[in-house]
Structure formats: C-alpha cells, structure tokens
C-alpha cells in the first residue's frame, strides 16, 4: 500500500512534467499541423541556460529559472523564424516542416555536444529532493511534490491565457483554421511566434525538472518522444488530451517500474501507444477527423 501510493505520486509527478512538454508540442501541432521534432531541443536549451546562470548568479533558482524559460522561449521563436517560416511561406506541405524540424533537433543537440561536451552534469541542489511524509500515507520526495505543483500552476496559467486573453482567443481560432483567422485580421506571423514562445517556455520548465531528475546532457531532448506518445494517446492537437495522456503515461511508467521491472517501462509506453492507435486512432480526447472531399 505504501509503495502503491508512493509510485502513484511519482507517476503523477513524472506525468505532469511530460504534460508541460506535451502541451507545447500539441499547441504547435494544432496550429501548424506538423510534428515539431525540435521540441526536445527547447528542453535541453532550458536546462543548460538554467545550469550556467545558476553557476554565474550564485544559485538563485528564481532568477535563473526565469532566464532559462525566457531564453528557451526566445530561441524557440528564433528557430521558427529561421527554419520554419521560409518553408511555410512557400508551401503548404507539412512534410517539409517535419524534416526541417528533424534537422533542427540534430543541430541543437550537436551544438551542445560541440560547445559544452557530451558529459552528464548535475544541477546544484537548488530544488529540495529530501524525503517528506505525505499525510502519513507514504514517504515521497519533496521534488516530486514540487514538480507536480509547478506543473499544475503553469498548466492552469496556460489555460487562463488561452481562455481569458485576446491572443488566447486568436490561438484557439487559429487551431480551427489558420487561414481563415488570418483573413479575420489576426496577425498570423505574430500568433505563430507567440505559440512557439509558449511552447519553448513550457518545455524549459519541464527541462529544468527533468535535468534535476535525470541529470543534464545533450541527448536529454530524446525524452520528448514520450511526450509525443502522450500527445498522441490523448489526441493530437488537443490540450486536455495531452495532459490526460501524459498523466496516464507517467503512471503506467512508474507503476511498471515499481511493480514489474524497470527495464520494461519503455516497452509498456510504446505498447500503450500502439494499443491506443489500434483502439482509438484519434486518441482519447481527439477530434474525430472526418475527411473533407
């Protein structure tokens, strides 16, 4: 019972970090309809900015966390401007964007390999990881609870942004039809920049927590593959779906690791992906796609 509660908290905590990543990925997908594989790069960028600003500014997590999320957001906008904007202005074929994003993810990963080297780095102990007693039910790490709370705060903020602000309205409109919302007077280029900024911002928040959990290295971005899986399980392009899929995935992963074997956790993840696609191709909360002829 103790282990079960503990693994559930661990799973929710891991799932909530996946959710931060998956939501940004899903947001970009819902506007531009392509899988942005360079999303993992934003995680790594956030992690490294946080690592170096912590070293430079004397272990102030608030300041360096802020620099990291803003920096990753701006770099995400820059990536869009350099690599995707020229393509999407010329053609409507999203396959080209997909390949460019694969190239971008290789570029970002290897910029870090070349400049700071491939070794594993641990963030200084700015986020508490000491064990805490969870209402007498289980002993869990403060870090797990903290990442769960942070993720909920940021996801709630995103929800507020999307429902209460003018730009949020524009983004929701554009996720139905980018062209038409452009015709209605939305500045499409600025909207896409904002979407990429939000995606990079949330990915960096996830990146900071992931680099505390798994240490920091250039290939850390590979973990986004789990967030992609979560987004597909929940339904591509649906934000509540991305959150739900991420939580399911985090729980499945941690429960497998805790009760069966930690080697099998990745097989379970990909098995769940295949099972979902067979059973409900458009995901748990995805829009039922009907083809327009």
């Amino acid at each position, binding site marked *: 019972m103790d282990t079960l509660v503990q693994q559930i908290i661990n799973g929710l905590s891991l799932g909530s970090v996946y959710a931060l990543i998956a939501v940004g990925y899903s947001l970009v997908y819902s506007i531009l309809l392509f*899988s942005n594989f360079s999303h993992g790069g934003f995680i790594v960028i956030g992690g490294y900015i946080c690592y170096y600003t912590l070293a430079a500014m004397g272990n102030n997590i608030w300041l360096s966390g802020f620099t990291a999320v803003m920096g990753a957001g701006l770099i995400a906008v820059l990536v869009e401007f350099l690599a995707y904007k020229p393509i999407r202005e010329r053609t409507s074929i999203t396959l*080209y964007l997909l*390949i460019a994003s694969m*190239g971008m993810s290789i570029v970002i990963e*290897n910029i870090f390999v*070349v400049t700071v080297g491939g070794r594993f780095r641990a963030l200084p102990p700015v986020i508490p990881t000491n064990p805490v007693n969870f209402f007498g039910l289980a002993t869990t790490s403060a870090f797990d609870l903290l990442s769960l709370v942070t993720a909920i705060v940021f996801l709630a903020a995103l929800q507020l942004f999307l429902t209460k602000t003018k730009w949020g309205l524009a983004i929701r409109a554009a996720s139905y039809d980018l062209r038409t919302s452009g015709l209605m007077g939305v500045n499409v280029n600025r909207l896409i920049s904002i979407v990429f900024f939000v995606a990079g911002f949330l990915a960096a928040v996830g990146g900071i927590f992931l680099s505390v959990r798994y240490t920091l290295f250039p290939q850390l971005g590979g973990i986004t593959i789990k967030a992609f899986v979560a987004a*597909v399980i929940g339904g591509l392009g649906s934000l509540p779906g991305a959150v739900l899929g991420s939580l399911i995935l985090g729980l499945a992963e941690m429960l497998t690791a805790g009760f069966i074997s930690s*080697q099998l956790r990745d097989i379970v993840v990909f098995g769940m992906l295949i099972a979902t696609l067979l059973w409900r191709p458009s995901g748990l909360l995805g829009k039922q796609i009907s083809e327009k002829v």
Partner: protein
Amino acid sequence: MSGYVEGIIILLCVNGIAALGVCLLTGFTGIFSLGHAGYMAIGAYTTAIMTLRYGIHWLPAVLAGGLIAMTVSYLIGVPTLKLMGDYYAIASIGLGEAIRLVLENGGNFTRGARGYPGIENFTTLPIAGGFFLVMAVLMFFLVRSNFGRAFKACRDDYIAASLLGFNTARYRVFSLAISGFYCGVAGALMAGFLTFIQPVMFDSGKSTELVAVVVFGGLGSLSGSLLGTMVLTLVTELFRPISQYRMLIYGIILVIIMVARPEGIMGQHELSPRYIKSLFSRKHRTAKATEGGSGL
C-alpha cells in the same frame, strides 16, 4: 582497390538498398515512416541468429531476414495504415523503438544490449553489389508497373484513387511490406559486413537518416534517393577527421536543403539522359512551370 574504398562502396550499396525501400514508401506512396531502422534490425538479427545459432548458410538467412521484416511490417501495417498523416509517423517511431527495446531485452536469444559478435563476414563487394543491382532493377520495374502507378495514385489523391476502385489501404500496406523487405535485406547485409550488430545501431537516429536521404534526394525519384545516399554517406566519410562537428553539419545541411530546395536534389525526376538534356534546354523551365507542386 584499398580496403577502405571497398568498405565505403559496400556501405553505399547496403544503404542504397534501404533507401530504395524507404523511397518506395515515402516518395511513391506518400507514407512517412520514422521507424524503418527497426526493420533493418529485424533483418540483421534474423541473419545473425540463423547463421550463428543454427549454422544455416548466409544466403537463405539474408532472404529470411528480408521476409521476416516483410511479415512484421505487413502485420503492423494492416491496422496502422488506416491512419492518415502524422499519426502513422508517430506510431512508426513507437514501433521502431519497440522493436529495438525487445531486442535489447531479449535475454540470451538476442544477447541484449551488448550486441551480437562473430557474424560471418559474407558481405563482400561482389555480393553487396549484386544484391544492390538486382534489387534496384526490380524496384525500377515495380515503380513503372501497374502497382507503381497505383502507389502514386494513393500518394497524389487517395480519395480519387479509391473512387476509381483501388483498395488504397491494401496498396499502402503492400508498399510498406515491400519497403520492409528491402530494409530487412539491407540490415542482413549490414550484419554480414560489420560482423557485429548491436540494438543501438538501429535507433531512431538511423531511421531519421533513412528518411533524410530520401527527402534530400527528392521525393518520388529512385535515382534521387540513391544520389542522396551517396552524398550523405560521402559527407559523413569526408568529415570523419572533424568527427565532433559531423552531426552538426549534417543537421545544418538538412535544414538548409528544406529551406532552399524542399523538393530535394532531383525533384520527381529520374536521372536519365533525357532529364540531363532537358536541364540545358528551355523546355525544362516551361515543363517545370506547368508541373506545379508535388501534391504530397
């Protein structure tokens, strides 16, 4: 010929076979896959296990590797190819990774993550070249046959194709199975060339490379894919002295190609005397202007 040059040529032939397979799927049928390294892994491991564990001659083992990869891709294709667009692309990442993880956790049968050493070095230059020539010629015939036209119809407008009576889902699965066969054979030959295989050799990076080669060369052009294989294999060899920058340069080239010339080196054309001649005449420009988008 020095052993190094011979090795590069063998590698080109092996990568070329895999590229032909992916080109049929992505270039001619319009299905985007990010998991084809998994089928190469199936081919490689089948050959390794059959030759080493059961002492079977390499030739049936290579063919069996291709056939098993084909069977697996067929079984996977039947349910998943009902999905259109990015769903299959992401499903294929999951499938590729699942195949790799199963091999890694296969215990004594696949020898896990440490890899499978001591495979017979059967992929010599004549064998790799022979396989490559036969499979390339077959692929050129396939693309020009009724089947090839049906694949292209599924790519260009699958609704129209199904209204004309083609069972588009079945053609898509066929295309996947054939490309699985090509990748399986390429993986088997790779095992015979390197004499040592490891699950990590067939990770998502390898799958990315397979797709990159095809897009780089030109979607819908077999000779373009082969040209793309040649360029990218040679680029990785040329930059071997500055190996830490190699992947960086590779990624930058990929992005620049997509930004500057998204249709790839060859576009949809084949490298034929007629195409080369048309490059120098005015007809080429007018033909290009009327051709329009690739409609993928």
